[in-house]
């Protein structure tokens, strides 16, 4: 893609909070009409990165531009073209659903008539029309999340920032949200989302950036990352010494990781290993499945808890 499609450009982007380096000299680009995902364990720097994009946090070092505007001195113009759906619920509890959208529209200098029209459309898009006169405190988690997304769209943004858009949602709500994100992308909105649901990144993102300890350690389309780091399939088997012995002896090209009770075997020829294991360890719960982004993620970032 050429530079006319470039929407966000980060060079050496760094954010420190005291001694903690939350984002550590990161480079990335986002192109128009892409949906990119920032993946990473808790504390990896995803949210901090997104917050710098919408001018919520000043940079410690480096450069960051949105639509050719510098985040350090053109906050207003950048914020005008961005929609933000933050991780936490910061809807206005003093107002009803509809009033939340109308008050928010006012911050963007949207006229009253225009705001009402947009609010109506958005409430129907997110299936909230019936709740328009309800106070925020009476909404379910899923409804709140949908309203936060609706609010993020009130200024018809070119760029949508979604921080953990489906965290804590039930499957029904998650699928509604995914569906809406896809249809927004079709309309030409550029989307950045952070998530630690690998399924979500696979379902929605054209490209993903995997972050760990403030750095981007890998990036690319989900399918490509899976092929590159894991292969087609993953074999799982219960952990015991005999399995490990056999693996190291007979399948020297196979890569495996021990995750507590289970061993994950990554190999180019999984079916050969699978049949042999079935025969040799029939009681070890041998199974084979498609590799997914979670395998990539765990392989790159490890199993250790981060917080």
């Amino acid at each position, binding site marked *: 893609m050429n530079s006319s499609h470039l929407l966000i450009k980060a060079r050496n982007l760094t954010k420190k909070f005291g001694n903690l380096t939350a984002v550590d000299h990161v480079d990335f680009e986002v192109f128009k009409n892409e949906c990119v995902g920032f993946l990473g364990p808790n504390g990896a720097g995803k949210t901090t990165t997104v917050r710098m994009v919408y001018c919520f*946090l000043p940079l410690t070092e480096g450069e960051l531009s949105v639509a050719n505007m510098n985040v350090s001195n053109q906050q207003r113009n950048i*914020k005008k073209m961005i929609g933000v759906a933050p991780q936490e619920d910061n809807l206005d*509890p003093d*107002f009803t659903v509809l009033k939340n959208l109308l008050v928010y529209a006012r911050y*963007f200098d949207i006229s009253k008539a225009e705001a009402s029209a947009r609010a109506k459309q958005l409430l129907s898009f997110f299936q909230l029309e019936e709740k328009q006169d309800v106070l925020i405190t009476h909404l379910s988690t899923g409804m709140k999340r949908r309203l936060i997304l609706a609010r993020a769209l009130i200024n018809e943004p070119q760029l949508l920032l979604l921080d953990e858009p489906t965290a804590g949602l039930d499957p029904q709500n998650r699928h509604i949200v995914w569906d809406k994100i896809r249809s927004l992308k079709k309309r030409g909105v550029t989307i950045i989302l952070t998530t630690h649901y690998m399924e979500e990144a696979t379902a929605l993102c054209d490209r993903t950036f995997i972050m760990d300890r403030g750095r981007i350690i890998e990036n690319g389309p989900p399918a490509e990352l899976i092929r590159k780091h894991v292969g087609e399939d993953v074999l799982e088997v219960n952990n015991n010494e005999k399995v490990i012995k056999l693996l190291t002896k007979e399948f020297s090209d196979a890569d495996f990781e021990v995750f507590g009770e289970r061993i994950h075997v990554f190999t180019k020829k999984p079916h050969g290993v699978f049949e042999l294991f079935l025969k040799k360890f029939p009681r070890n719960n041998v199974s084979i499945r498609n590799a997914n982004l979670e395998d990539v993620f765990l392989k790159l970032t490890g199993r250790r808890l981060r917080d």
Partner: protein
Amino acid sequence: MRTTDDSPVGFSFPKLTYRVWKVWRRNFDVFLKTIRVNFLPSLLEPILYLVALGLGLGGFIPPIDGMSYIQFIAPSLVSISMMYGSFFECTYGSFVRMYFQKTFDAIIATPVSVEEVIAGELLWGATRATINSSTALVVVAAFGLVSTPFFIFVPLLAFLGGLMFASIAMCFTAIAPNIDFFNYPSFLFLTPMFLLSGTFFPLSALPPAVQTFALLFLPLTHLVSVARGLIIGVFTTSLYLSVAWIAVVTFVFFIISLNLMKKRLIK
């Protein structure tokens, strides 16, 4: 390097636009929703004080500088409502919006800047002072205690005095680790002021050192003095000096509070 839109990260004079009023308007909208509850205290409080202290206790007290006791305390009650109205709005009220509701965070993601959010809160605090004290003024007038036409300037004084207390309050909000923290300024700052600012007895009754202290450091002293002039026509301090004192303190704390809040909110 933050030059165009927001002011620099360090101490600075704020760059404010008309967007300040959008934040003010948000608070005004909430106020309108709960208007009956909002008016009740500012209506009842002066009535209770005028009846209990003015009519009750006042019967045992000789006139002060030619004023009956109920006349003497009437402007104090109006001034106290300015102080409480704005101070509580910009401590408890602002803290709830900032810390629990994350309302500021939500607004900062729009073209409104941090400084405009805080300035909007301060102007709203000043507005609350104006609304509350105007209600109190109506009560005072109903008791027949307004004796000069200059009382029409009381709302103006209320807005300025309200902005002063709002700005001071916002400094406490900027450093408050939790909401219970506001007990300190309430008991250590507001209560002494409530009692010692020439409110319920003349300042001259206090030892000279305390008088000087009140004139130098207790903002309510000047507010009460000007209000007494505008409502009853008796000035205990120089009108111009008191107004100037209020204006300077307001300006200084306005700038300080915006900077402190910016420091708290932009990490």
